[in-house]
């Protein structure tokens, strides 16, 4: 249990730093910056208490907000995703979720792909609605959410694939 806590702390810090120092400076194709920090929420161990999980997601979001001057937009999006996660876990992993036996490292790529895509899209839509906050700019919200979402998804899948072997 302690080693789980430890690895979560490491992951939390590493993802925040990765987000703030690298991903926020990427400006891929002019202005696309992936929001890789939500990987923490995506692969947080399933067994853990959901209340503390939602709270940790809030803290994660607020931290990113502080760095990016976005008020509470990241926090709101992260909390929502954390709250809705069980539904999508059930949807994507089916029976494995009922037995609380999900291992993200061992899940096949398609399941992981669907699960990541759905949650990342929800997160990004909420995020961009709150950041842009102007109903005359709906097109900007959609284009930003889709382009950034795609990039985040790609990065999230790459990172999980890269690190999955080592953790065995």
């Amino acid at each position, binding site marked *: 249990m302690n080693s789980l806590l430890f690895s979560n702390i490491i992951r939390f810090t590493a993802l925040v730093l990765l987000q703030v120092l690298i991903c926020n400076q990427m400006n891929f194709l002019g*202005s696309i910056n992936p929001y890789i920090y939500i990987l923490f929420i995506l692969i947080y161990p399933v067994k853990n208490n959901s209340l503390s999980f*939602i709270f940790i997601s809030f803290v994660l979001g607020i931290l990113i907000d*502080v*760095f990016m*001057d976005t008020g*509470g937009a990241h926090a*709101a999006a992260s909390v929502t995703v*954390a709250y809705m996660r069980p539904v999508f876990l059930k949807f994507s992993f089916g029976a494995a979720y009922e037995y609380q036996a999900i291992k993200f490292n061992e899940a096949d790529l398609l399941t992981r792909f669907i699960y990541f895509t759905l949650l990342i899209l929800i997160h990004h839509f909420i995020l961009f609605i709150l950041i842009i*906050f*102007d109903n005359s700019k709906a097109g900007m919200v959609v284009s930003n959410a889709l382009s950034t979402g795609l990039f985040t998804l790609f990065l999230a899948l790459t990172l999980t694939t890269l690190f999955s072997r080592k953790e065995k």
Partner: protein
Amino acid sequence: MFLILFLISFALTTQAHDYNKTKVINSAYQISGSIHGAFSKIGDYFYLREENNLLLEENNRLKSSVFNTKTEQIESINIQQKFRLTPALVNKNSYRFLENYITIDKGEKDSIKEDFGVVTAKGIVGVIDKTSQKYARILSILNTKSKINAKLKKSNHFGTLGWDGEHHNIVQLNDVQDLAEITEGDTIVTSGFSYTFPENIPIGVVKSYLLNDTKDLYVINVELFNDMTNLRHVHVIENLDFNTLNSLNPSNE
């Protein structure tokens, strides 16, 4: 639990969008400021050559204006010093969304306060919006909430400079009188009406212009001199008469 946290963060977001009330945590804070600062120093090394060229150009311009001015004039300039400039480094810059802020590595410790203007060698950047002990946050001109007085250099017709959020090298000069003669390529400079900026700081050139909906005022698209995506060295301008001027005109915004 979810609802509470969601509402908190939603409230924080709306606060941040509301210019007058903002008391939200921001990137001028010590922790985030210092982390941004430490790592942007590494990035510095990659831009040394560009920065050198920029400084050389500016030096060249200043030198040529000094050589073309008589000595007595220069001395008289020194006597009536009205503005004090502080150099600063940009730690964090954003230009992607509608409300963009820039964080710099100077703060209250360097006697920087709210409403001071910020410029680069080429043109204006924005206005100081929040300060902490060691860092300050600038409301970028690429922020839909930004409002700066500006005028046409040629004819002195003035207006308010704002941003529509479309392109990060084009801002809009609104409310210019329809009597004004405008041609594309005209230079737009600060008006000096507000105490934030001295007069005649370059902003950009007229790219296109049209009458507004009521057909009595011009809206001018201004192409910025500054590349707002690539800021590094900036100068913070302090108007030494700020307090005196402000007390004379308390209703001034």
